[in-house]
């Protein structure tokens, strides 16, 4: 993944977006950071996630609520580590593409700064490295990965910036995505008057799996989120994971009504299992075969509206 081949769809969307259009193009699909560590860890993380889930499965069946509650911090921690190591923080993804194209362009910081000023809306405690450009934490991080010869103080601040960004994403995920997913679970038929702890905890797990990376990578970029709500994002590791989590949980509801009297059929164990498996599958597929592909509702739906 060091230098990802630009998918036709990606280049298309980048090229076909004139800068002056009112509907600014949303961010292109995201790649794993082009470092050895990121690449390696991006494989380790899903594997570790699944193994840990499998290992703790008996405990989960035994007492879903306390097990989910206990595992939640670990999941959050693991996922924060994953996004920090493997993914570009908000506002830097487009710059990554640019940087990949012109690695030594002197104008990169300025261009990136402009784009960050317009697109990024996360309020951050920016750290000044160069004096003339106020960089967002994510930017520092990205520059850090590109330019490994920076000073140690820059390294420290870069890491600090990533921590801040990931913690912000975590907060947003917890505060927004968890309630939204809880409501969705209930709308899909989860008990309304009972099992609140199960619902909220399941939603929290799903929120971290699906939304943390999205927020970390895209911030609160309106265009990206519009695409997310419309399920129009091009396939990548982040969107694949998010979509996979939801589809997996959806499919996870299938065994619940069966009368096999197995303890693992209890709500929400199967949903959670589906979500984890779906996340891993979605991430893997999103970065490989489905990279850059979009969910389509109708064949040639753009043409259709004219009729």
């Amino acid at each position, binding site marked *: 993944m060091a230098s990802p081949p630009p998918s036709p769809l990606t280049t298309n969307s980048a090229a076909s977006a004139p800068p002056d259009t009112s509907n600014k193009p949303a961010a292109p699909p995201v790649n794993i950071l082009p470092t050895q560590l990121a690449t390696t860890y991006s494989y380790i993380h899903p594997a570790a996630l699944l193994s840990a889930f499998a290992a703790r499965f008996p405990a989960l069946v035994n007492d879903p609520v306390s097990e989910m509650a206990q595992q939640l911090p670990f999941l959050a921690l693991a996922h924060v580590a994953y996004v920090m190591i493997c993914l570009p923080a908000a506002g830097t993804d487009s710059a990554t593409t640019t940087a990949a194209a012109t690695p030594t362009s002197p104008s990169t910081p300025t261009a990136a700064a402009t784009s960050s000023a317009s697109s990024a809306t996360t309020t951050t405690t920016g750290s000044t490295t160069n004096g003339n450009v106020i960089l967002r934490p994510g930017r520092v991080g990205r520059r850090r990965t590109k330019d490994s010869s920076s000073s140690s103080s820059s390294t420290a601040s870069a890491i600090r910036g990533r921590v801040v960004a990931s913690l912000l994403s975590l907060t947003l995920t917890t505060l927004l995505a968890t309630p939204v997913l809880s409501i969705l679970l209930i709308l899909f038929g989860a008990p309304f008057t009972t099992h609140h702890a199960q619902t909220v905890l399941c939603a929290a797990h799903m929120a971290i799996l699906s939304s943390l990376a999205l927020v970390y990578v895209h911030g609160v970029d309106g265009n990206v989120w519009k695409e997310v709500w419309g399920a129009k994002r091009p396939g990548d590791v982040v969107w694949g994971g998010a979509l996979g989590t939801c589809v997996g949980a*959806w499919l996870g509801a299938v065994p619940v009504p069966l009368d096999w009297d197995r303890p693992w059929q209890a709500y929400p164990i199967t949903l959670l299992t589906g979500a984890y498996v779906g996340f891993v599958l979605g991430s893997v597929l999103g970065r490989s075969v489905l990279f850059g592909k979009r969910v389509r509702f109708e064949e040639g739906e753009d043409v259709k*509206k004219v009729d």
Partner: protein
Amino acid sequence: MVSVTSGGPGLESPTLSDSRNAGPALSSRSPERNEHRKPQVPKALAGGSAQDKYIQGLETEFKFKHLGVLGVLGWILFLHVVGIFFFTKGFLLTRMVLENKSSCDVLPFDEAATVSKKVDGCWHQKSFEKAVVIIIDALRYDFTVPFAPSAEAESAQLFHDHLPVLYETAVNTPENAFLLPFIADPPTTTLQRLKGLTTGTLPTFIDAGSNFAGTAIDEDNLVAQLRAAGKNLVQLGDDTWHALFPGYFDPNLTRAFDSFNVWDLHTVDNGVTANLLPLLHPENSTKWDVIFGHYLGVDHAGHRYGPNHQAMAAKLDEMDRVIREIIAKLDDKTLLVVMGDHGMDSKGDHGGESNDEVDAALWMYSKRGIFGRTSAETAKPPMLARDRFVPQIDLVPTLSLLLGMPIPFNNLGSPIEEAFIGPKGNDWKNVMSVNRLTSAQIKRYQREYTASRGAEDSHQSQSEDLWSAAENSWQKLPRIGRPSQATLLSVSESYKDYQRYTLQLCRSLWAKFDVPSMLQGVAVLSAGIVLLVFYARSLKADQTDITKSLLTSVGTSSAVGVVVGAFLSFSGFVEMPVVESSALLAAAGSIVGASWTILAGSAGVSLPLPSSLWGWLAVTFTITQSIGFASNSYTIWEDEILLFFLSTFGVLAGVSSMRQKSTADRVLGVYHSILFVILGRIASFSRLCREEQMPFCRSTYYASATSSTSAPWQLAVPFLVALILPTVVRSFYAGSKSYEGAATLWIGLGFRLGLFITSVFWVLEGADDGEWLPLSKETLKSVRVFLAQLVLALAFAAGTTAFIYSKPCISINVSQGNTEPESKGKNLAPPQPAGRTTVTILGFGNVHGTRYFLLVVNFCLGIILLQKPMGQGAMGLLLWQILSLLEILDTNGLVLGNSAIGPIVLALLGSFYYFKTGHQATLSSIQWETAFIPLSSVQYPWSPIVVILNTFGAQILTAIAVPLTVLWKRPLQLSDQSSSSPKSNNPSIRLLSDVVRAACTYILYFATINLATTMWAGHLRRHLMLYRIFSPRFMMGAAVLGVVDIVLIIFSVAGVRWSTLSVGEIFGW
């Protein structure tokens, strides 16, 4: 078109400017509407035109094609009826339940002999005062006899030789006990077995005529006879008895235990033993006459571990101990019976008809020593279950006569000889007399059954012969002196021959599925679905274009089928009544003919694969649910699954709405998607749980889980509906400025008034139940009936009239000069010179939809009246969800795109709300009492119609709404007169094709569900849960399909005629 119809205020009111001298000219901001169309001017305003004839031609064409379409739908209905009929004929083997009861005073003989006074007991000298009947659930015969290897290598299994007491007593003291194999009739489920063990008759699919409302046995049976004779009955153990015999048992001594927890081996058994042994104490002996003890431990051990397990051995040891204890405490007057109701297969399960499952054991014991053996070779109990077995129903006459009871009327069993032969084994007179009694009873039953069913079969004569032969030999017995044993034996045997022959006869009539007939039904249904798929989903031409050729080929080929069928039947090639063979061959012929027209016709078909996510979604919903019906769990939880599907659709609709280009579409689409999901979830709180859903379900439909009346707070629901629902409908009309004309009167006034009267009706109903008002029941009843009839008259009589004759829901303003009061400040037309007439039409954008929707309102009102208060709330939510769905379809551009999703989601909604109006896929959930809402006595055909409107109200309402999936906000298209071929250019025909396509898609859902439930029920016909789950679901699926077909033909598609004509009358064609 989407952006136009919902673009904002004023857009739905294109302004027509009409110069006095010039012809009509339209100025509108909707360019795509005007392409290839003549100027859209209300016909009424266009004045006398020379094109009248042309327009009339279009109108006639529409009417004609409309009739043709109804013909096609009628043919589809015919296929469904034939398919369901043939499957049902082979599957639902019915036995009529006769209400007759045997009476102690009347002997079963023809000559109406009364009981001679010397007899102590009814009909026959009784042997015992009291009885203890122990049922050890799933006591297989080989559990009770010593292990005898049938093959060299076979070795004893763990269950062998752990219950020796039965065999020991039968061998050591043959006058005190006997042990026999006891063969059950499938299905080997406890409920069905208990029916057989107490009534003496065979189980069939439906006991026609029995009380649908519950499982209680209303046939004559042993328990009822004992109860009628004043015996005090005690039941311990399995609570199935209480479902079958509610209120028969002494409430103080009876202890019932839940039978469903198969993982618990001991609670029931310990409870039975702890309560049984004290009752056997001499000081308690006067408190009871008959004890029924039902142990479940052996059955549960089998289900959980299988028979070859240590737990089974332990359980059998325990049973052995218990029986020995009972024997020790038993007194002389009491008969002890121990039996299994069925066996178990090698895995410990049961329900089917394999030998292991039907081989149970029967053991009778008494301290008096009155039992005997008829011959030396029968001295010992048989070692194998298939030697010298007795059918389980033999228990009924045996026990009845031993206890001095009359034999239950429906009994088909025979007395067990060992019980009547006497300890010396020579009392053939006794055996003969019990056999004669039993035969006479069977004869009497047979006569009654034939009389009420109508004689039909030729087998009757042979059983008649056997009976008269036996009677003749009995007549020949010497009246004076003792006839020889051999004579008595032969007379007895001839009676027994008659009994066994009749049993065989009934078994062949009642207990065999007619598989070829079932397959014929399934074949017709499948072919119907395949044709429907191609007709509705993949025809390249318009449906209306092939109507003529389709009807011709269907008519010709089915006529040929009728003739061939009649010929085959008359000439005796097939053993079928002429009507049946004609119908079957007509269906087959029409299928062939239609396949030719549809598949090989000029228009051609494409592969019916969905082309969009919506299409795939529709297919997924239908297919997964159909597959799910193979599982009893998914059948039980159908309501939750439907909610899951509907939420899925709602969420995807929201996602899809986010993709829309126009902001208005996006906002409206997302809003209605969220609304759709939330409304569905709110409706899901109204539920009536079926037994199998417990304990994971809480009923909210009535005041409590054990009541069938509404709680006082629920009476507020109708008022809320009356308050909110018309406003909701109005808001959807107002969205397209269509709240004009008939709509204001009908929705604002008529609908609201009807709903309000409905609320009053249900308050009076509640007042009647709770006795809140100082009015007599009769007064309340007549007031209620009057109110209900008023609402129905409003909904169906006035409503239909209004629907047929009202104008479209638009308002047309003609004003002089530049003033444009209706355009709300937006000048749509360019500044016009003075002296021009401005015509403003409000409600233009949804003229078809709002006009047709009036019919939905009518039906909604009528159906709401017939629902319980909670169901009224649910129906209100349904109407709201339907409207929301229509908006979703519109904002996502699915109205004109031939998408299957609209009709399919409507079908899902209909099925979902079936469960939300207090119904389940069980016969017991039918709300029969609703027949008395508008009537004070049962009147045909109105009472069944009322019950159907109550039961399938949701499916009916959604069926009525089906045409809206292509009519809602459909842009008004008029024919282009300049075109050379007016035939292909009649937009009303396009509309009709779209309506037919939607209707067929809607039918497809229910037809697929019906086929699936049919096939699963046929495939699982020996399944444990057949009677409880699969067969009721099959019946529901078939009934729904029929109802939906008929409603679509008579009301929905027919209604399109009136609404289209009404639109055409104003706007032209």
